[in-house]
């Protein structure tokens, strides 16, 4: 019973949570530094996933090998998108950039649909034998990879933000942009770094999701809501909070379908994504600063 719970629900929840976390970090960083909600972030994940697919097709290597390439390429595209579509709007009210991000979301998605078509695809992947722990807990190797790589990326990001000059500058701009300017911080470099990180992590999240399930062109759009829920839950502007928030939302979504009482699922699996929304609304009403005291809108 407990083992079944862990194997079929908790593990899935953690994996999903990792994917949400990778996207939510970008959303939260972008909000902290550029001060607008980036609704195209989900589609940036789709882009990463499909660039990974292109990499697999071209090189014939497994997706793990092409992952860094997909991340780098997506990061580059993210910087280009900023330059073309968000930078010109920097002096307009922030809400204009939010509207633009909806347009960008659509452009990314339709570009992918034009290039790759709308068929459901997958990275070539053989049958995976679960790893057996303590004779009871079964973990798929790809889940180990996803969780492990997420930990590596998150720890790496945290080290970057805490230790490096540029990372600290990012935190400084997020904390107080006008003081950052007065201090002589190069805001342009900070903005580029933010897009590079946001794009790269989004790509990783997209590839992981494509790997765990399948690739379709709406993959990222469907993540937008849970990722915003995660960012708000963790506290806007707080990368660690976004990770926690992602895990909470991911696990909550999976657990919501667990038959806690008798044989009936607590919530029909069809309504999984409503869980994120419920968490979001609840959070906005009860504690808009999030778990880690982020910025209030």
């Amino acid at each position, binding site marked *: 019973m407990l083992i079944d719970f862990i194997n079929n629900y908790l593990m899935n929840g953690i994996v999903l949570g990792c994917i949400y976390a990778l996207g939510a970090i970008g959303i939260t960083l972008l909000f902290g530094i550029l001060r607008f909600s980036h609704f195209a972030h989900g589609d940036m994940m789709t882009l990463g996933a499909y660039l990974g697919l292109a990499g697999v097709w071209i090189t014939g290597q497994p997706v793990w090998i092409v992952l860094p390439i997909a991340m780098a390429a997506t990061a580059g595209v993210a910087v280009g998108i900023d330059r073309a579509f968000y930078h010109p709007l920097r002096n307009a009210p922030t809400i204009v950039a939010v509207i633009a991000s909806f347009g960008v979301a659509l452009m990314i998605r339709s570009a992918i649909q034009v290039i790759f078509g709308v068929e459901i695809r997958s990275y070539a992947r053989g049958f995976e034998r679960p790893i057996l722990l303590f004779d009871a807990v079964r973990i798929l190797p790809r889940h180990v990879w996803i969780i492990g790589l997420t930990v590596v990326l998150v720890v790496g990001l945290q080290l970057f933000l805490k230790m490096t*000059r540029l990372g*600290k*500058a990012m*935190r*400084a701009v*997020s*904390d*107080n942009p*006008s*003081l*950052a*300017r*007065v*201090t*002589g*911080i*190069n805001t342009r470099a900070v903005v580029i770094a933010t897009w590079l990180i946001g794009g790269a992590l989004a790509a990783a999240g997209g590839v992981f999701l494509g790997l765990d399930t399948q690739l379709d062109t709406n993959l990222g759009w469907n993540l937008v809501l849970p990722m915003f829920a995660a960012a708000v839950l963790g506290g806007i502007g707080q990368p660690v909070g976004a990770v926690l928030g992602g895990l909470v939302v991911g696990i909550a979504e999976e657990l919501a379908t667990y038959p806690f009482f008798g044989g009936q699922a607590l919530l029909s699996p069809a309504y999984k994504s409503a869980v994120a929304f419920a968490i979001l609304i609840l959070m906005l009403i009860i504690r808009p600063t999030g778990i880690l005291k982020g910025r209030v809108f």
Partner: protein
Amino acid sequence: MSLLLEARELVGGYGGTDILNGVSLSLSREEIVVIVGPNGAGKSTAMKALFGLVTVRSGTVWLDGLDVTNAAPETLVKRGMAYVPQEANVFTTMTVEENLDMGAYTRRSGIQAAKDRVYTLLPALKAKRRQPAGELSGGQRQMVAIGRALMVDPKLLMLDEPSAGLSPKVLDEILDAILAINRSGVGVLMVEQNAKAALSMAHRGYVLQGGKNRFEGPGPALLANREIAELFLGG
């Protein structure tokens, strides 16, 4: 005595409205110079104009003989000008040490030496260096803000109302620190509401009114001027 900063006939303001209608001032490297004046006189605006935060529509600013009118803050920081804003002048989510690191953002070397110097000048900061600046008291924050500005080894330190919201005792500590900084060879330009405290320690002072120079002279002399006292309590 060579001039470190000279500003001549500055006119400018935000958007379309001019707040400065011809402000001139100068300062040498050895000096503490204070700008005082009633509310709305354009004191803070004048300082922001020197630091490139307010557009100067006419007039010139020279720093060390170089024309820096309307230069970007980033450039000015690199040329040895440091500015402490009046409000929100620390990164609250970062530790004291990280605030100092940010102050050193434009420099590549000598960061540790600069930090040591700040800790010598502002010893109170050393004990707090791992604490987030947002958790500090008003006076301590002001110290952090000054320390952050000192990290570039500035030739000129500009402070916008360092006394705002501080109790007299804490203010004394801040002013003592400013004196020590000046003695270490940094020119200091301050805007102050607290004219008595500021003028009593300054080498020279400027009194602004209506965005123009009204009086100027040695600090104590201005302080003794009855007309200036009247200006503050309404003349």
